[in-house]
């Protein structure tokens, strides 16, 4: 029972970080229809930055904020290159984000070298039903829930949020009302960067990050995001949690080495299921 509980909660915590990465995918895709293959770079950049800042003596809180800000900036840069030039087709933007993700590798190696880093945030643990759960897990879960609620409210209640949704929903009509889809797209990319940064800040104490962590993070984030067809933040949260818990159980009861396969097969199955429900025409117009 204690093993089950500890897998469940650690899965929940990791799943929340996936959901945060996923929310970045969703924010960007909703507004620009672009899948940001560089999404995994944001958490890594944030984690690496925080660790450097802490190493220089900055206190917690300030270090994390800087890390998130750096990730947000990276998001903006990705956005500018991927969609800044008018007339860039969506699929080309996708490949461009892939290129930028690879470029991020180079940048990360040059600045931080190729060794994984980690740091600790909340120490100590809590005893629940006989299992020792690190307090960090609860911080992660709490922050994630708050973030998602804020995100949902932002998109549905604020004027700018609605304008962002409008861009996703009907870019032509948005242009007619004077909303600039490119500028809104950049806002979305920055938001994606900030969300990814938040994920990175929370996950690095749990799992060390290095320049090559972003593939796994992006993959898991994407897996979570497609639960909602890349458009629903709530579905991404559910997807992230399901994925995290599933991975934890696979690692705990089977073998950690199979985690990747499980994730990937799940992704493909979900995608196939969803595509079966959509016609070619709606895909083309999307």
């Amino acid at each position, binding site marked *: 029972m204690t093993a089950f509980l500890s897998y469940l909660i650690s899965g929940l915590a990791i799943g929340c970080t996936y959901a945060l990465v996923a929310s970045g995918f969703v924010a960007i895709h909703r507004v620009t229809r672009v899948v940001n293959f560089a999404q995994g770079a944001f958490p890594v950049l944030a984690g690496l930055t925080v660790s450097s800042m802490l190493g220089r003596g900055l206190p917690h809180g300030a270090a994390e904020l800087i890390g998130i800000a750096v990730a947000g900036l990276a998001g903006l840069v990705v956005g500018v290159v991927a969609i800044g030039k008018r007339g860039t087709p969506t699929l080309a933007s996708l490949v461009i984000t892939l290129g930028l993700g690879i470029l991020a590798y180079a940048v990360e190696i040059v600045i931080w070298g190729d060794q994984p880093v980690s740091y600790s945030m909340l120490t100590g643990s809590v005893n629940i039903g006989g299992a020792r759960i690190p307090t960090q897990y609860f911080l992660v879960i709490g922050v994630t829930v708050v973030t998602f609620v804020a995100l949902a409210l932002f998109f549905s209640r604020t004027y700018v949020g609605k304008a962002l*949704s*409008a861009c996703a929903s009907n870019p032509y009509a*948005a242009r007619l*009302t*004077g909303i600039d889809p490119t500028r809104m797209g950049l806002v979305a990319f920055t938001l994606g960067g900030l969300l990814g940064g938040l994920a990175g800040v929370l996950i690095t104490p749990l799992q060390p990050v290095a320049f090559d962590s972003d593939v796994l993070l992006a993959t898991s984030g994407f897996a979570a995001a497609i639960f909602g067809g890349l458009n629903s933040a709530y579905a991404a949260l559910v997807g992230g949690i399901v994925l995290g818990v599933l991975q934890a159980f696979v690692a705990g009861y089977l073998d950690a080495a199979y985690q990747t396969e499980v994730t990937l097969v799940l992704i493909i199955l979900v995608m196939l299921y969803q595509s079966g429900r959509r016609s070619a025409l709606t895909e083309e117009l999307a």
Partner: protein
Amino acid sequence: MLDVTDLVVRYGKATALDGVSLHVAAGEMVALVGPNGAGKSTLVNTLSGILRAASGSFTVGGRLAQVPEGRQLFPELSVADNLRLGAWRLGRRPGARDPRRIYEILPDLARMARQPAGTLSGGQQQMVAVGRALMADPDILAVDELSLGLAPIVVADLARHLRELNESRGTAVLLIEQNARLAFDLCDRAYVLESGVISASGSSAELGRSEAITRAYLGGLTGTGTS
């Protein structure tokens, strides 16, 4: 209010508008009639700033808002939100984003305020599209294919609203229509656009009597009169 001079618009190598000139005075209702592919939507999109002209020019003495062909709403957003976004260009002026002033003109919209725009009927969506354009406080309204895909009685109702708008608030209207009878009934003056050039212009009465026009546009069409 609107002056278009020798406007030329191209898509790559194809010329959509080949030297179009027209004029809409403040408070006028003017029709632009023509068959499919004549370039009507191209003209309207150029006026809205979405397309760039290759040569020629146009001036708008005030704000121009477009009611696009096919409604083009934001289907997942509510009617009220669709309206609110129409005021985007007005910035943060107090009360700019309040849809209530539109509910006064188009009271039916108040009833549907919370419904997602995608769930409405064609006629209702068209009304939302008009309302959204009105939120920008325009001096001239460019209405593209108002009657497209709508039942005659619905079109009659919408046309009545447009006329009321024009009479009570002085909003100029440029009505782009394939349905020439509707256009001539609603507007005093009209231009005929064919293959990117203005082939005829004059008062609706004159054009309605012209044999060529009648043959091309009014022969065989059942009336969709608005009065």
